[in-house]
């Protein structure tokens, strides 16, 4: 049966589509086009047009050690935040599945962090982890510079990893919990009848059956950590101290808007875009034919 509704005149359909097309064009194709344009051209410092630069901008980017530093820090951040956000989310979901089967209110509360905008979360964590207030002030009194993200780059990295993971913890939790609850109860019971205790059941039954969800979340978390970390960094560390938290995405912003190197920033953003596209491709490739146990 053909369920499509067909408009008699084509222009009505076009008219209805227009706002959406306009949005997509304004916020996606136009910036992307502009970035592509800048990435392959060189802007004259005092205005007066662009000249074609070929791959020079990319060569510049790749030969810059500062860029590779940002790449390395992005990897550290991606692995750190993904491990933290997924690990804790899995742990919480396992507890929740065992103790609070069907307890919807609790699940709803745990999704909230995901709905909190990055600036709000960033400000909250800036206060929570401020070295001159709260718990850390007390610890710093005992041991000076026990915690000082504004000076210590390692501390700063921990700060952005924790602040960022807080949000994705919620996201991952919901997926893990849903996946756990979709495991037929009879499987857990059969395993209990076969003599296994709760930990053994987790290891032998629940975790293997979570594998597709884990893979899905792994890709999502890593991909998002490359782009979604901007808000947190901008609100907490500004990429510092001494570039210790300047990730790829932050470096684009910094070089482009602070350093006014549009061409370099544009080249970097093309690289980042390709990276995200590659990861998304991997995800679709494997999620589509993810392990089906039927």
């Amino acid at each position, binding site marked *: 049966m053909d369920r499509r509704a067909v408009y008699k005149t084509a222009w009505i359909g076009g008219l209805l589509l227009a706002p959406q097309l306009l949005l997509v064009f304004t916020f996606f194709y136009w910036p992307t086009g502009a970035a592509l344009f800048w990435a392959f051209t060189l802007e004259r410092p005092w205005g007066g047009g662009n000249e074609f630069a070929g791959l020079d901008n990319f060569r510049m980017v790749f030969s810059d050690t500062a860029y590779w530093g940002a790449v390395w820090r992005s990897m550290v951040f991606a692995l750190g935040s993904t491990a933290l956000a997924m690990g804790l989310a899995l742990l919480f979901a396992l507890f929740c599945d065992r103790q609070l089967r069907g307890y919807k209110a609790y699940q709803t509360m745990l999704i909230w962090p995901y709905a909190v905008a990055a600036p709000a979360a960033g400000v909250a964590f800036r206060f929570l982890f401020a070295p001159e207030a709260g718990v850390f002030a007390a610890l710093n009194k005992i041991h000076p510079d026990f915690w000082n993200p504004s000076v210590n780059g390692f501390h700063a990295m921990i700060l952005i990893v924790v602040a960022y993971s807080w949000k994705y913890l919620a996201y991952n939790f919901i997926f893990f919990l849903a996946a756990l609850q979709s495991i*037929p109860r*009879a*499987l857990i*019971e*059969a*395993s*209990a*009848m*076969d*003599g*296994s*205790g709760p930990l*053994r059941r987790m290891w*032998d*039954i629940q975790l*293997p*059956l979570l594998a597709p969800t884990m893979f899905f979340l792994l890709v999502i978390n890593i991909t998002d950590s490359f782009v979604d970390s901007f808000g947190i960094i901008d609100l907490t560390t500004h990429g510092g101290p001494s570039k210790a938290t300047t990730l790829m995405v932050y470096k684009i912003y910094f070089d482009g808007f602070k350093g006014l190197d549009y061409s370099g920033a544009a080249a970097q953003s093309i690289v980042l875009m390709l990276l995200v596209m590659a990861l998304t491709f991997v995800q679709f490739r494997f999620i589509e034919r993810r392990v*089906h*146990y*039927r």
Partner: protein
Amino acid sequence: MADIDIRSVRKAYGKNQVVHGVDLSIRSGEFVVILGPSGCGKSTLLRMIAGLEAITEGEIAIAGDVVNAMEPRERGCAMVFQNYALYPHMTVADNIGYGLKVAGLSKPERRARVETVAKSLGLSDYLDRKPGQLSGGQRQRVAMGRAMIREPKVFLFDEPLSNLDAKLRVQMRIEIRKLHNRLGTTSVFVTHDQVEAMTLADRVVVMNGGHIEQVGTPEEIYRNPASRFVAGFIGSPPMNLFEGRVTGPGEVEAQGIVLSVPHAGLARGQAVTVGIRPEEVLLGAAGSNTASIDVDFREELGSVRLLHGQVAGADFVIQVPATTAGPKVGHFSFEVPARAVHLFDAETGMRIDPVAGGIRAAA
């Protein structure tokens, strides 16, 4: 092998009580089938034996040990689930051998025992497959194998055949009973299918609404149903039941038909339910206890034939051999032998025994 003692066991989910004080003794090596309509609490009772459901009140003892506080793994029971509950990510061999793995047996030892069990179930060629690649009957066998391999004290079955097609169901039913004859393990089998219950059981426990209605051999529950409920539930087609009244010594009246019955000590005017099995009436015979039926539909079942119709306005079914001659529909007279009349107290639903005449309590 072990006996199971269920003493005044109750189960409540919150305020909702679903098992009301069940007492049942299952002998060592016995095959007991718990039979009842859907939602009567069969599975709940079975799961309390298994340890998958907490016992709200009362006690369950397996081989003399009270198991109320024990984990499932400490009780020595193995269970076959309705949907088989095979581990989808494990091969058949790993599914069957999982219990042994948990128990810490070495790999070669496990392999040897899995192969023995698989062979006895005809699964030898499928050991490396995943459950998703098996047919319904094969999955059923894997579930059996998984239960057998640990040589449990007790087998528990929760409607294990209800997902199979009719032919396979009959076949697996026979295999399960043969297996029991071979192993002699105490078995508790839950089903809503009376044919399954009758063919498998040493004793049938008929449950209704969280109560036990009757415990007895298949023959006992068929011959002497302890209550109106059992009478209506056992037998296919079910017993014809009418509301009636005692009109004199050894005489009841129902639907305008007067029947003499062998029951003694009935009180005149007592309200009773009269039950007559479709296969126990004699078509065409003329004597005492005769009535007539208006047959409006004839159902051929191969070896037998069912005549559906009305007796004095009430629905009535008669079963006759398929060889019986006669037109399809019409007016027939039939005889109800006095010994074929079952009486139940209209108020309590309990059976009134023919000889004693008193109201027999449910077993």
